[in-house]
């Protein structure tokens, strides 16, 4: 990936970035605008409601970034998000036989719902974004791993280490039962190595394809990783299966084991550049400029692989806020769902959560705990196909049209959806159609639409008077909001 030649578009983007970088030297952080705050929140979180954007804006750029990194606040400042009490996931024991298969399936749904609910409710959205980042980088899938408890443990690791240390996390992943099972480490035996984990450790987890290592290094790393295994309780080391002989990796010879390999990898320059690029592409823009990557990579190296200083560099860099970077990323399906729930202020409850976690997200191409393959989700424009675009439109519209309150006790499965009157209440009891369209666009798209498209939304809403709280207004506002989320613009962030 690092060796990819620059396409025309990259060159244009890079040139534009340089021009802007030069121009922005003079731009001080106090030019921080409300749009900047909304942009930061879309990327370092799951977007913000108008009130949340206002509160983050009021902090100023540096304090806003600090708040997102560790919830620290200047004295007297108002927190953009309430403190939330998030329950840990507690796994259930799996019974033997047929019943076990059923409980396993239920556990996976419960685990997915638990994580989605957490992303929707959290007051620490960056922690969830980073956990999702790690899930996409150090991927494992339940189909291969089989034990929901192992996936839950890996997910906990990603939360505990969300903004921890890249090297420690890599070392931990080499002992993670889900990963070891996913990449057949269990079957990597002295004399008959299985290269799966070794290859992906270098190619996908730390260095990038063909970047600084050879096929021979992979074979030698595989030898060093022999003996790692998974027992019923989790990680085990099996000395009898470990190849304790000398290996030569990156030109260095020694009796390396897994920890030795991690140390060798992180003595090299590639992991810093690799992770910095991945972070930029996840948070910043599809084609970050080499100089911007270098700044984040430098922060990783200088701080002994700690994540927070590197993320601070990224989120306070002028390049992050350049106009070209805005709305340049396609929302992942999980981001789309979580943002929609948050922006429409919907309480995450099982019917909508389960619909998303069991159908919607899979159809859109992002099933939690089941990435398509070890590379994770390639993302970007690849999220969008002829059909996933329509699936996005229809499933987000389904959320918009869900009834605002739970139905009678006889129908507990009825989804709980957005409350239209509450979403638009700041406009008064009888807002004009124009005010309503602009408020919907501002809340959801967070950028203006071309005049003819704004006019199309006004046409769908109709010019009859709107009385918030009536069933007529409720129906028309839902149609409007459904249209706003069914636009190309809403797919981007």
């Amino acid at each position: 990936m690092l060796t990819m030649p620059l396409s025309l578009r990259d060159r244009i983007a890079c040139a534009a970035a340089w021009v802007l970088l030069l121009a922005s030297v003079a731009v001080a952080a106090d030019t921080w605008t409300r749009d900047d705050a909304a942009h930061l929140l879309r990327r370092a979180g799951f977007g913000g409601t108008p009130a949340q954007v206002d509160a983050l804006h009021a902090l100023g750029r540096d304090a806003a970034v600090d708040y997102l990194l560790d919830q620290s606040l200047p004295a007297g400042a108002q927190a953009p998000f309430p403190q939330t009490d998030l329950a840990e996931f507690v796994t259930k024991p799996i019974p033997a036989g047929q019943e076990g298969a059923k409980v396993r399936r239920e556990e996976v749904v419960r685990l997915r719902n638990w994580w989605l609910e957490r992303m929707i409710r959290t007051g620490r959205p960056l922690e969830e974004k980073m956990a999702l980042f790690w899930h996409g980088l150090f991927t494992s899938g339940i189909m291969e791993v089989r034990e929901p408890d192992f996936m839950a443990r890996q997910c906990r690791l990603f939360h505990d280490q969300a903004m921890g240390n890249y090297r420690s996390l890599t070392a931990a992943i080499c002992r993670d039962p889900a990963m070891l099972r996913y990449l057949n480490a269990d079957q990597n035996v002295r004399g008959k190595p299985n290269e799966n984990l070794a290859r992906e450790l270098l190619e996908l987890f730390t260095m990038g394809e063909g970047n600084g290592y050879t096929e021979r290094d992979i074979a030698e790393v595989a030898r060093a990783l022999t003996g790692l295994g998974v027992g019923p309780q989790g990680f085990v080391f099996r000395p009898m299966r470990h190849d304790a002989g000398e290996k030569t990796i990156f030109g260095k010879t020694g009796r390396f084991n897994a920890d030795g390999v991690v140390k060798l990898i992180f003595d090299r320059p590639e992991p810093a550049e690799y992770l910095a690029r991945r972070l930029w592409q996840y948070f910043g823009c599809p084609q970050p400029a080499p100089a911007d990557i270098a700044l984040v990579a430098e922060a990783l190296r200088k701080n002994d692989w700690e994540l927070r200083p590197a993320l601070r560099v990224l989120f306070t860099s002028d390049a992050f806020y350049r106009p070209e970077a805005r709305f340049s990323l396609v929302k992942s399906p999980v981001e789309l769902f979580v943002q929609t729930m948050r922006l429409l202020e919907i309480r995450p409850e099982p019917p909508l959560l389960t619909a998303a976690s069991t159908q919607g997200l899979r159809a859109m191409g992002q099933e939690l705990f089941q990435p398509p393959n070890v590379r994770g989700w390639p993302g970007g424009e690849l999220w969008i196909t002829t059909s996933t675009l329509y699936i996005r439109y229809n499933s987000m519209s389904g959320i918009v049209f869900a009834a605002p309150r739970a139905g009678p006790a006889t129908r507990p499965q009825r989804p709980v959806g957005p409350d239209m009157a509450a979403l638009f209440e700041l406009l008064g009891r009888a807002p004009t159609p124009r005010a309503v369209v602009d408020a919907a666009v501002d809340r959801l798209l967070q950028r203006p639409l071309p005049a003819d498209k704004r006019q199309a939304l006004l046409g769908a809403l109709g010019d009859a008077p709107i009385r918030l709280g009536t069933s007529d207004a409720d129906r028309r506002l839902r149609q409007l909001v459904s249209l706003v989320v069914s636009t190309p613009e809403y797919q981007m962030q």
Partner: protein
Amino acid sequence: MSDRILFSRRIFLSRGAQLLSVAGTLPLFLDRSARAMAAEHAANPQAAAGKDRVLVVVQLAGGNDGLNTVVPFRSDDYYKARPRLAIARDAAIKLTDDLGVHPSLKGLAKLYGDGRLAIVQSVGYPNPNRSHFRSTDIWATAEPQKVASSGWLGRYFDSCCKGEDPSPDAASRPADSSAAIALTGEPPQTLQGEKFLPLVFRSPQALTYRPGSSNRAVADAFDKINSPDAMAPATRPADADQTTQFLQRTALTARLYADRIRQSTTRVQNKATYPATRFAADLKLLAQMIADGLPTRVYYVSIGGFDTHSQQADRHARLLSELGDALAAFAADLDALGHLQRTTIMTFSEFGRRVAENSSAGTDHGEAAPMFILGGSVKAGIHGPAPDLTPAKLHRGDVPYAVDFRQVYATVLRNWLGADDRAILGGGFQTLPLLA
């Protein structure tokens, strides 16, 4: 690892820049050709039935084990290298005196007997890469030496199939999106042009905006907000613009073709019984679209799970039954529907697997492997040399390539699609006598 779907790893960033140059004129053209297609069909459904040749590309994602697919049952080296995994001499279904196929491939063996299956042996490329992703890229782009952004069939569509469009700038336009359909989750890079954008969907039923189906005003607004902008508004910066335009174009093509594709599924009755697998369901839908005469030249389907690092035997047997049984039903269906003569099916996988089995009764990533070419117009038989499994003849323990996969592509491009294979593949590759 899991590999249910393995596609190219790169995001097709270059696409945006190129779309900019065609965005202005393309929507109008697309709209016109879709309307023309619908009008023609309404006027005379029979005449609209397709006559063009069709190519179906089948991706075996994960790296199919070629040696247990096409079995060299006379090779002692094969049995030495695979004490647990080798297909027993009397279990392989014999095609020739020294080659057979996996016992799960009964359907393909029958097609071979019927003269409808060609097997190309030892297909690969120089300096093979054992990364799933890079090797998938290489097969998709036909560029082993450098990283390219467009797929080989995408480049074909960049410069062909302009149909009846008489306007002077037609030559600079890509083919209409309906020229290629992929039934996949992600857009396959193989079909991705510098300008061309294929239709990609899992099910045609999904291509509807539901809230618009019962409300005309909402449907009208939906069409407007999902159309390309008249001009790029100054409020949008360039990068975001390109992504927006890509999304707008995707929405537009979906709107234009959804109805027509859905009609195929109601109009055509399949004439063969398909197995109850996802892959078979995909092929069943393809048969309907082909028989209904869509203007589509290339269809793309994918079957995953071939990355058999451990406990390969049962899993591989299941995969090959799924593949072979579905392909046999597909061929029988197309034959009965009268469209097999104009259809050629080609399988590929990013690599074969190591000759020697590993300690987990599986096989690791390898190099060359066989390809299947089948249809009503293929020259049946075995093409390319069988792998020589003498340990000294192996390349890093793998089957070395004898046929460059670009020779197969060149053959398909020149002899089946009637295209300029040199321009598309960037050089001359000797074609093979695969097609009658």
